[in-house]
């Protein structure tokens, strides 16, 4: 069949639907059929599924002209998606085309939700197109004979690549691809990504830097420019609007007319707990919505989620309160309006959420921003600018994630075993491990085989064994089983299943929350009031309760930082407070009373000013610095500064950070002049000092948590099976401490520091911020009480610690205070 005849098949199908292919779809078909790899930059709901699914089918037709009568069995393409919730949607679209064209191609899903019987069936007979997640792909690589399964796979599509890039699941994907490139001889690799700042890099990471695959690749951009209207919800009375907070319930009544005026509205919240609360409160205040609003977040069971998604599609819901669980995929045509509650901390995410409304081509997207506290209105104003300028941020890919590599190598050892020379070559071609040294590689192999760097007598370490022909292999069944189980838990926190006592699955909840509950406590979850009965075999047993609850599960999500671009926009908005009102945005204008209050004892800084505020409360001495550089930079600067101050004399700090500034809280008063005289904001020795401050705080220790789980040091048990494996349970903290004491050169331990350094603190940005401060005039204000700017900071309870005092001295002072009480 000629290429033109192939296109005709596709064009005819579009005709039958009364659609017309977009230019980017045609372009993707063409380049795919030419045998190229690529990255397709297209937003959700733009028809990207058809852009890549069509050429996969056309390619099959081309190679099998008798496709209508004979079906060639075996896996032909893999579609990787970051969210299992999306797989059904993709399956439906794919099946529709496959059936309409009479190809007889089958589509199957392989994810954490896939039943065991289905898996067994797949093992015997793989579907032609497999839709899967990065974790499930790893699991397939942990299956014996995987090479045969994948042999004839001709295409791999990584959907929503921007969501994976910059995460360890992205690294997992890179590794999986590096293997499949060798196993499937004629495979094309395609990524689909929404707009991010570093699209070119995204393509490199997907295909491998300097790889033949990259050379033979294209970037296709869908020009589906969409008009986005951003509107801020502004409180009527700023005097009574809170200075801090993250729930935004004060403005609940302002949301009601928006809901009434739109067919379907999505209300995006940043955390699941916020989602739960909003859902409850809307129903409480407006019972007339009962049955017309629903809730959607990642911890709710699959059936309920799917029901909600279906209900949005057939327009039977007025509103859905949701979290990032509805960020991606799934085309919801009836959604007319989106409300974002609280800052999203990212422009790309904000734009993406806006795009969930007005989904039909040509329609505009409408998003309302609902501030949860006064200063967030500055953010709202900055967001307007950002959306206008399309200032989307980068997603920074990981480098040298040894934990993921340890996991991957074990995976290969569990299935068919691996030869290091072959795998080394493959991983050297990935973005993540392009710079791995021979020493590091050898270290990892030793770690897998000996659990240390040299063979010790009496040591019974058992994991990977080296066979006579040099193949690395796991032969122990228990180790293989535990490893397979652990692959799925790359995201970390231990989750427990919530069930009614008589059965009936409700969802999953973080162990952290449940551990705080006592029998009889009532908590809100999945929109219900539940009474906690007990934890049994990793399951939380509950019963319905009519009692009012005050406890809402808290999830740790949502502590992201502003990008450089967004921080700059934010500063500019703030500086506009000094301009005449006619030049201010509506949000800034509305903040007048707050600014006035701020000016009573302090200032609203101008571009050339760096503000420091100090005051005393019952908590101690507060010292607040306002660089307005985003949380990441403030974490770095706060650690650096407190470390430098702690060198002057023994002192203990509790640190808090947000996107506007940071606080050093202490029981001692700081002499700000001394800090300035000692030039503690200098860029000299930043690297060294920052590294030392990392040892003094617990940031790296926290980072180590994921590393320990991913690399298989910490085993989380088999929650699904109800086996807790108590004798193997330990905390990552314990591991961190023994590494610190006995094996500080361990690469996994070291990784905790590099990761904090590169991914959390962003040293480069810190330097620039320090240089900017050097040129500013420092304005130090001694206040009698907290200012509006300082309020969100001083009330933040998630804190970092740093101390240069002797433990004994600290205890003595702390206990002395206790006695006084």
């Amino acid at each position, binding site marked *: 069949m000629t290429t033109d005849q192939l296109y005709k098949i596709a064009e005819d199908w579009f005709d039958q639907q009364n659609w017309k292919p977009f230019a980017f779809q045609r372009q993707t078909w063409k380049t795919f059929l030419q045998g190229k790899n690529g990255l397709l930059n297209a937003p959700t709901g733009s028809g990207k599924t058809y852009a890549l699914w069509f050429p996969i089918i056309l390619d099959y037709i081309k190679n099998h002209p008798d496709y209508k009568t004979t079906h060639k069995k075996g896996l032909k393409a893999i579609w990787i998606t970051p969210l299992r919730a999306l797989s059904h949607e993709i399956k439906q679209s794919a099946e529709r085309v496959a059936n309409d064209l009479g190809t007889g191609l089958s589509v199957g899903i392989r994810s954490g939700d896939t039943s065991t019987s289905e898996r067994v069936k797949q093992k015997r007979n793989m579907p032609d197109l497999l839709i899967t997640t990065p974790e499930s792909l790893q699991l397939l690589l942990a299956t014996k004979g995987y090479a045969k399964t994948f042999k004839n796979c001709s295409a791999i599509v990584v959907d929503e690549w921007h969501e994976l890039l910059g995460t360890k699941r992205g690294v997992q994907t890179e590794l999986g691809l590096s293997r499949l490139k060798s196993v499937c001889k004629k495979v094309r690799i395609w990524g689909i990504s929404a707009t991010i700042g570093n699209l070119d890099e995204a393509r490199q990471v997907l295909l491998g830097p300097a790889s033949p695959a990259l050379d033979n690749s294209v970037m296709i951009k869908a020009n589906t420019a969409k008009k986005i209207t951003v509107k801020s919800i502004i409180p009527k009375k700023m005097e009574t609007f809170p200075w801090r907070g993250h729930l935004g319930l004060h403005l609940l009544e302002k949301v009601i007319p928006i809901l009434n005026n739109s067919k379907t509205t999505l209300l995006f919240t940043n955390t699941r707990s916020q989602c739960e609360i909003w859902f409850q409160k809307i129903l409480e205040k407006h019972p007339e919505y009962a049955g017309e609003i629903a809730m959607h977040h990642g911890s709710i069971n699959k059936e309920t989620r799917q029901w909600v998604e279906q209900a949005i599609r057939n327009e039977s819901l007025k509103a859905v309160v949701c979290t990032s669980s509805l960020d991606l995929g799934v085309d919801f045509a009836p959604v007319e309006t989106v409300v974002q509650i609280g800052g999203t901390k990212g422009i790309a995410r904000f734009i993406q959420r806006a795009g969930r409304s007005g989904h039909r081509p040509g329609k505009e997207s409408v998003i309302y921003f609902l501030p949860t506290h006064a200063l967030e209105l500055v953010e709202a104003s900055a967001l307007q600018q950002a959306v206008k300028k399309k200032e989307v941020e980068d997603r920074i890919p990981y480098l040298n994630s040894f934990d993921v590599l340890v996991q991957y190598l074990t995976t290969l050892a569990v299935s068919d075993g691996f030869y290091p020379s072959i795998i080394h070559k493959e991983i050297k071609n990935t973005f993540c491990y392009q710079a791995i040294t021979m020493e590091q590689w050898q270290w990892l192999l030793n*770690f897998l085989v000996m*659990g*240390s760097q040299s063979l*010790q007598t*009496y*040591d*019974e*370490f*058992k*994991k990977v064994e080296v066979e006579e022909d040099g193949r690395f292999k796991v032969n*122990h069944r*228990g*180790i293989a089983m*535990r*490893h397979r189980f652990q692959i799925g838990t790359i995201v970390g926190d231990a989750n427990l299943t919530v069930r009614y006592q008589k059965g009936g699955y409700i969802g999953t909840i973080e162990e952290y929350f449940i551990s705080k509950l006592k029998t009889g406590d009532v908590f809100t979850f999945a929109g219900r009031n539940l009474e906690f009965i007990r934890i049994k075999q990793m399951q939380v047993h509950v019963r319905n309760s009519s009692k009012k609850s005050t406890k809402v599960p808290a999830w740790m999500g949502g502590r992201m930082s502003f990008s450089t671009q967004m921080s700059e926009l934010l500063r500019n908005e703030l500086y506009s407070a000094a301009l005449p009102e006619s030049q201010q945005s509506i949000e800034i204008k509305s903040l007048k009373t707050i600014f006035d209050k701020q000016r009573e004892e302090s200032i609203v800084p101008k571009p050339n000013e760096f503000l420091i505020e100090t005051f005393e409360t019952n*908590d*101690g*001495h507060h010292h607040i610095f306002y660089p307005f550089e985003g949380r990441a930079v403030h974490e770095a600067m706060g650690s650096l500064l407190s470390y430098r101050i702690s060198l002057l004399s023994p002192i*203990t*700090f*509790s640190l808090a950070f947000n996107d506007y500034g940071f606080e050093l*809280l*202490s*029981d*001692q008063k700081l002499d700000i002049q001394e800090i300035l005289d000692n030039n503690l904001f200098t860029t000299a020795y930043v690297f060294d000092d920052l590294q030392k401050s990392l040892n003094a705080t617990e940031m790296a220790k926290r980072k180590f948590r994921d590393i320990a789980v991913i690399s*298989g*040091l*910490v*085993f989380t048990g088999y929650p699904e099976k109800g086996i807790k494996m108590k*004798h*193997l349970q*330990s*905390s990552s*903290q*314990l*591991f961190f401490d*023994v*590494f610190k*004491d*006995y*094996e500080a050169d*361990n690469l996994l331990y070291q990784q905790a520091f590099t990761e904090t350094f590169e991914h959390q603190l962003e040293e480069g940005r810190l330097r620039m911020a320090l240089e900017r401060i050097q040129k500013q005039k420092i304005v130090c204000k001694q206040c009698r009480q907290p200012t509006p700017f300082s309020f969100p900071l001083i009330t933040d309870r998630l*804190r970092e*610690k740093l101390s240069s005092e*002797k*433990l*004994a001295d*600290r*205890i*003595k*002072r*702390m*206990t002395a*205070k*206790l006695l006084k009480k």
Partner: protein
Amino acid sequence: MTQNIRIYDHEFILHASGAVFWKGKATLLISDVHLGKVSHFRKFGAAVPLKAIGANFELLDEVIAYFNPEKIIFLGDLFHAHLNTEWIYFEAWIAQIATEVILINGNHDVISPLKYEALGIEIHDELILDKCLLTHHPEPRQGYFNFCGHIHPAVKIQGSGKQSLRLPCFFKTQDQMILPAFGKFTGSYTLKRKKEDEVYALAEGMVIKI
């Protein structure tokens, strides 16, 4: 490095390692060493640093050298799990100390008593010495003072400037003393204290009354 306390007119010394020395009886009480835990984890594929094995024995030697006891009573969970190669180190260690050793059974102690007896170690479910009841699990009993372990107690203290610290500790109530875990690779559990409880925290080689 130590703190002295009196119970029933006996003098006890609390050591920063988590051991208690009963002066009048020249006896050392040690709880929850969890020997073999490191090797157990390693056997199951989790690479805990090998050097952590030696640390437990070094610490034991240190305390023995400091107090020079005639007798050591382990208050349970001496070994974390089934027999593994750390037993070899333990045998060697036992062979070179001149002290009598007694083990009170803990929930983790699943190694055959015969193996201990072969090393001359007595095993008991509990032991009563001069109105002091020695057990692994906390077990209040009328008329006795209970020394026990099992809990791995820790205490949380808070101070001005939103400071807070969490430290392993000796936890003493009216008639009970829970010892901290002596083992290096063990966790701890925060206990809430009542007014009348006495807490001695372990901090950087010191024992500090809180």
